[in-house]
């Protein structure tokens, strides 16, 4: 199976570990990945909030570039995924918007013929590859990991029919199959505040505190996420949360591909796990090699 890869700006910098582990996991499972050449920023939610047509145009440029590759476009960043998916959806349903976007893309001799499917790697792994294949290729049991599976908001919402909107199961079933324990975690789709951490930090710190506290109280020793922004909010601001709310939180936050990479026999270094600010040590968590 082949896929076109849209990394997005975060995966080049603050979420470098996501990029490294994502590439590792796809390679280990025998999936071919071709990075989209000369992709541009998807526009994220900032653009959506200021200029609608322009936001659709810049995001559609990526879709137009990806079309000749002839494969599904895989976007690990939740925000890129939401924006590209939304653009695709609007262009398919709104003829006026499509005409406006076409006109702008013409300036670079690009044309988008609505032939792209935008997908998230979690869903690709669970649906295209399947749990059985992944388990059969796993080299290390994840027993000892007590995971709070944090999906964040943008993966299952708005409704795309991928998974349950209130209680998604894709990550839970994937990691249960790999030997990890999923802790009870009702905050799994609660919003981390996203860019509110910069604009209204008090509001965002409170949201993140609730999420982390919930994971901690239910006995998690690790939080897995699918989104670069959730990851940085939950990890980099834990100090601030502890100071502000007098809590003693110390939870490592990894991308789901990093934990999956460990199960597939990856070295923590090639999975970018050493880039974490809150260390997650495999020995401490007694991971055993089973094969």
């Amino acid at each position: 199976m082949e896929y076109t890869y849209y990394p997005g700006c975060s995966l080049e910098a603050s979420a470098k570990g996501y990029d490294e582990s994502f590439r590792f996991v796809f390679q280990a499972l025998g999936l071919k990945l071709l990075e989209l050449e000369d992709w541009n920023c998807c526009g994220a939610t900032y653009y959506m909030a200021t200029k609608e047509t322009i936001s659709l145009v810049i995001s559609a440029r990526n879709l137009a570039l990806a079309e000749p590759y002839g494969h599904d476009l895989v976007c690990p960043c939740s925000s890129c995924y939401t924006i590209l998916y939304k653009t695709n959806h609007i262009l398919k349903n709104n003829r006026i918007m499509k005409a406006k976007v076409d006109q702008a893309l013409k300036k670079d001799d690009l044309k988008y013929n609505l032939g792209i499917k935008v997908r998230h790697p979690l869903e690709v792994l669970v649906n295209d590859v399947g749990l059985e294949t992944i388990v059969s290729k796993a080299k290390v049991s994840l027993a000892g990991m007590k995971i709070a599976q944090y999906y964040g908001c943008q993966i299952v919402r708005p409704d795309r029919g991928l998974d349950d909107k209130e209680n998604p199961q894709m990550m839970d079933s994937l990691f249960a199959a790999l030997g990890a324990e999923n802790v009870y975690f009702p905050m799994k789709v609660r919003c981390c505040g996203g860019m509110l951490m910069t604009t209204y930090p008090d509001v965002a710190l409170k949201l993140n505190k609730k999420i982390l506290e919930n994971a901690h109280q239910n006995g998690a020793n690790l939080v897995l996420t699918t989104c670069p922004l959730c990851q940085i909010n939950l990890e980099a601001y834990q100090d601030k949360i502890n100071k502000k709310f007098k809590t003693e939180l110390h939870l490592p936050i990894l991308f789901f591909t990093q934990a999956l990479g460990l199960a597939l026999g990856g070295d923590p270094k090639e999975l970018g796990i050493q880039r974490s600010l809150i260390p997650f040590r495999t020995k401490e968590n007694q991971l055993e090699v089973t094969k």
Partner: protein
Amino acid sequence: MRARKQKAEAEGAYSQKEKELRNSLLLQVANIPGGESIKKCIQCGSCTGSCPVSYTMDITPREIIALFRARDIESILSSRTIWICASCYACTIRCPQGVQVTDILYALKRLAIEQKIFPKRFPVYSLSKSFVYLANRYGRSYEPGLIVAYFLKTNPFKLLGMIPLFLKLFFKGRIGILPKKIKGSKNFSKILQEAEIMEMVVPVVES
């Protein structure tokens, strides 16, 4: 404001500004797939109850819809609500009537920006503007540049507070030294220029 409104209502007319705002918003809402569902709101408050940040809003999401239907767009645009929304879509998926609450809030944000109805040095607008500037120039976002541009626009002193985090991330190799420019950046600006024009093109909608 209410007195003025009552007077306008008694006269059976709305102020010119209110009328323009309303038409402009209706057009924006009409562009959202499923946007017309706003008419079906039953005011149950599921949106407000589901919202993780409604506790800090001055007008709740349910009230926004009510005000919209009461034709008081000006109150909505001057509220804190549209800027606090983190677009997590919790309201949208729980709405029993299929109202696209998040996308309607996006439309309201765009309208407020278009009409410049917000305080000076306003954080969300400043962040948006910094982001748009970088994305236009390089074709890609650049996180350190974004943060610096943002704090210079709002509160430069807070920038100092960001240094420890910056260093921590830097030593973990999680910060790019320089922004990356896309190869086709020349053509990219051509696309953007045309898109700017397209932004202003308003299709004629039969009412």
